């Protein structure tokens, strides 16, 4: 009996939270439409978010993308070369990096850096009365803090994903030159011949969706902090876990829709 009662409580709490998150997301999109009216105060937050999520993540993204591109080339040449199918390396690079890894790895880095930062910062703002300060001035915390962060994360994630693709491809070319020196122009023309419009569209769609999801989940969890600072790390962990689950699920669904249907 106790198990059923506990299960019912968890179900009720989860349903309430999902409904609250839905309302929060709806409010954020509604306020996104009027964001330009508050550019005097929200624009600085937006620029800071783009700088932090995008520009300051470049060294880590560069390192990861160059390494991933190189590793795929090394592994690919080893396996495909055995069967005399070396040219398939371009297909693998496009499929693995451009269609899949770039958006998901970039999203994971953004969750680790910016998702945690957003929920921690907003959580601390709640406990320090800063959210109340905004409310007392008539400023909506969703307009000022969430909308600008969401736009910032989407712009940064989109740009970082493109950058990741370019860096990974460049890394692939660098490493392939170790095995058999290859003409730069030939390498890229072969690579681009394997790319389709769907590859580009899917990358764009994923980065926008991931950016919206990460920003909304992290902001929601941060603002759900009630009074105690001990709630902040708990909410941050929750933000990270839920963001990862969201990104993986969304990735599976988008990939399935584009390539299987």
């Amino acid at each position, binding site marked *: 009996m106790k198990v059923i009662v506990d299960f019912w409580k968890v179900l009720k709490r989860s349903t309430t939270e999902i409904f609250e998150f839905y309302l929060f997301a709806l409010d954020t999109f509604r306020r996104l439409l009027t964001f330009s009216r508050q550019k005097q105060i929200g624009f600085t937050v937006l620029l800071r978010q783009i700088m932090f999520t995008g520009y300051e993540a470049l060294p880590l993204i560069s390192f990861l993308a160059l390494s991933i591109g190189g590793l795929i080339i090394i592994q690919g040449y080893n396996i495909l070369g055995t069967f005399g199918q070396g040219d398939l390396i371009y297909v693998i690079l496009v499929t693995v990096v451009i269609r899949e890894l770039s958006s998901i790895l970039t999203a994971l880095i953004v969750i680790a850096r910016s998702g945690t930062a957003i929920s921690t910062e907003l959580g601390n703002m709640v406990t320090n009365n*800063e959210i109340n300060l905004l409310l007392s001035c008539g*400023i909506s915390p969703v307009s000022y803090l969430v909308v600008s962060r969401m736009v910032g994360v989407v712009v940064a994630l989109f740009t970082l994903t493109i950058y990741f693709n370019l860096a990974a491809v460049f890394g692939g070319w660098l490493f392939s030159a170790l095995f058999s020196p290859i003409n730069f122009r030939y390498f890229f023309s072969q690579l681009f011949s394997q790319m389709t419009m769907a590859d580009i569209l899917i990358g764009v769609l994923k980065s926008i969706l991931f950016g919206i999801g990460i920003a909304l989940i992290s902001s929601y969890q941060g603002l759900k902090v009630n009074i105690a600072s001990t709630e902040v790390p708990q909410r941050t962990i929750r933000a990270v876990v839920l963001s990862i689950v969201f990104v993986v699920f969304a990735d599976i669904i988008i990939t399935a829709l584009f390539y299987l249907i």
Partner: protein
Amino acid sequence: MTDFLELREVNWGTVEDKVLMDISFSLSEGRSAVICGSPDSGKSVLLKVIGGMLPPDTGQVFYRGREVYAGNEEDIKKVRREIAFVFHQGVHLANIILRENLLLPVKYHYPDYKSRQFNQEISYYLDYFNLGNILEHRPAEVPEIRRKLLNFIRAFIMKPRLILVDEPLFNLDLRSQKMVITKLKEFRQQGTSFLLATNSGDVMKAMADELIVMSDGRIEKIINVRESGIPVRIGDLEFSDLVGVEDEI
């Protein structure tokens, strides 16, 4: 005639922990009230309900005939432009410098503001409170006493019709307390209304037209101070008199 500020049967809190119960009172324009009561009486929560931070569970708050939690963003903005809030501690946004903090409501409510005019006013108050050149610092870099005084400046430069102050003298030294009370009196004489949550006898003497006595989330009584004067004590509450407003200011 429509009241300047009116609360109708306001309730706030959880079922187990009701913080405000059936709060109803009104305030005419130009008049000021001090809300007093024991620390858990709900006076700070009441100020936050009026200040737009805690929507009441039931009941309504009206400002100049307009319900403060109803209407669209623009309606709420119009109300908030005329009501300022001073927190009991020096609350500022931690990740921007103090100048940006002071100008935040100005930029929001007056997007085409003239920075020169506001900067002159800010300079005047900085001189008045002897705060020196601190505006380029972040809040964490300045002492609490200065952060609290900057809260008052943020409220004053908006020239609001109603100022809500939670524990006006909390965390201030004696000299700052006197300066704050003098400035609050000046604003009051110019017609600004005040609602102040405090048990300070000095503030009551300087500011109160009415005394709203709260106990366990309810209004116990409302005393018209201009008619009956300020009581020395009500129940367990003894009204402190540290600054000596009448003698020294």
